[in-house]
């Protein structure tokens, strides 16, 4: 298998693709280490002359970045918990039982993926307004469930299919009741899948902007909303804005790296099988 790789078919395209993918992050990171004055020179300075962490200090102490980050963490965590509980139960039903309406329900849930986010915007806004939920973090948890639950059910059904049925049958013969079976046998086996799905939901909720900007007020805004509002508030501080971008991306990247292998397996399983 030790063949020498062709330069034009392997190394060159790979290097170009990697540069294309990594460059925006590298550039943002370099910008975040510069002084404001260094951004607005006649020719672009590639490396910061005097690298500084002042931008990060300013971001953490003078803006609402940290409170927004905590709010985003809360919303993303609650959304993940709800979606995981609901979707692992549904996944169990879809994977282990054949019942009337099963196929229609399963493909119907997949079809929901197709409906655009903008379609839900008006109904949710009006409903939240009537329920006096606008500006509250609860409204965002509900809104995020709309686009995470269908996908989570699909993922969890896939993860459930991978678990051999023999273990459950043995537990049933031993006289385990349904709740016992679910809590003691299924959940421990399903844990890696639940963690992967939960992380995916967390990442998507953490990243979301369009609902967040409409359903929050200036006191309750989430991380993406705060971050983007800096463009208006601190017009020329692209160094500080870059620091915010780098800080906002680190948690999701770390989380993704941890669950990446499992998540990718779960996501690709359905489509590869056909």
């Amino acid at each position, binding site marked *: 298998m030790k063949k020498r*790789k062709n330069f034009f078919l*392997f190394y060159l395209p790979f290097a170009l*693709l*990697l540069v*294309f*993918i990594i460059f*925006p*992050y590298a*550039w943002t990171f370099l910008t975040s280490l510069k002084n404001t004055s260094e951004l*607005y*020179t006649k*020719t*672009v300075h590639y490396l910061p002359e005097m690298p500084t962490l002042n931008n990060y200090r300013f971001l953490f102490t003078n803006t609402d970045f940290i409170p927004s980050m905590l709010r985003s963490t809360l919303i993303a965590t609650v959304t993940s918990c709800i979606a995981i509980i*609901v979707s692992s*139960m*549904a996944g*169990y*039903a*879809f994977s282990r*039982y054949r*019942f009337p309406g099963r196929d229609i*329900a399963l493909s119907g849930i997949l079809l*929901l993926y197709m409906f*655009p*986010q*903008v*379609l*839900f*915007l*008006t*109904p949710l806004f*009006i409903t939240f307004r009537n329920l006096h939920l606008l500006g509250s973090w609860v409204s965002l948890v*509900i*809104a995020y*469930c*709309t686009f995470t*639950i*269908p996908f989570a059910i699909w993922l969890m059904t896939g993860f459930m299919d991978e678990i051999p049925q023999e273990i459950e049958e043995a537990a049933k013969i031993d006289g385990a009741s349904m709740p016992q079976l679910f809590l003691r046998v299924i959940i421990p086996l399903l844990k890696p899948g639940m963690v992967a799905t939960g992380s995916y939901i967390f990442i998507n909720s953490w*990243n979301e*902007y*369009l609902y967040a*900007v409409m359903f929050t007020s200036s006191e309750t805004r989430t991380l*993406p909303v705060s*971050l983007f509002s800096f*463009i208006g508030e601190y017009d020329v501080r*692209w160094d500080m*804005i870059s620091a915010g*971008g780098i800080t*906002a*991306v680190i948690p*999701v*990247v770390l989380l*993704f790296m941890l669950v*990446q292998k499992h998540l*990718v397996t779960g*996501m*690709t*399983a359905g*489509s*590869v099988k056909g």
Partner: protein
Amino acid sequence: MTNSVQNVRKKRDYTPYIMLAPALLLICCIIIYPIFYAVFTSFQYYAMFDLANRRFVGLQNYIQVWHDDAFLASLSNTARWVIVTVSLQFLLGLILALILNQNFRFRGFLRSISLIPWVTPGVVIALMWMWMYNGNFGVLNDLLMRAGILGDKVAWLSNAHTALNAQILTMVWQGTPFFAIMILASLQSIPIDLYEAADVSGANIWQKFYYITWPHIFPTIVITSLLRIIWVFNNVEVLYLMTQGGPGYSSLTLSLNAYIEAQKSLNFGYGSTIAVYGTLIMILFMTFYLKFTRKNRER
């Protein structure tokens, strides 16, 4: 015999329904109900700035869009946005997947690295690219001028000729990893002896790709492309953050138009109408796409 059938009936298992109940209840309340509500709203004159005059107007909104310059401009932009973005994502994703399918050092690590754009917040994507595209101080102008490709600075996002293309490039960057992981998974399920047999009979690298790889990954490409087309069609985050459809209507897409009507103008009725049009277009497209590709696969 009858006895046992009755027994089975009596013991009918309600477990799946109980397990499904929370999911179905939530889906009905927060997905199905809003869909119907949006369709209902689309037949109304319903604007936040003029609530007193809220009323049913029948098909008026649906007719009005065809006299609306913004809507008409958005149609061709949407076609370009979806077709160019998804084709390039596919092409680069395929190349990336073929590369990542080789054996080399740090493969796992580099694979994870190349997937990062896919989980990056839309706001951060917009910020990074806005700063790179900046007309006066952006790095893109500087690099292109140093390379002698560009004579003068271009304000990429505030120029009607470049605004949409610049954002297409950003979207290609964002979506390439998704294509790559789907195709990669499919590549890894190809039995290796097929290639060994091809080696024995002296096939070259292109023949191997054409006769073994491509037929095997084709179904995955069909499904992934469909998912991507739907996703890119519906996506408004980057466009909204970077140019809000401007300058003029030069980067306005259908979904973005619906979002701006609802979120900025608070014109709920009209915005819902545009969103319903978008949904109908996608349903139609999906039906044709699946029919066409199924026919092709059966051949």
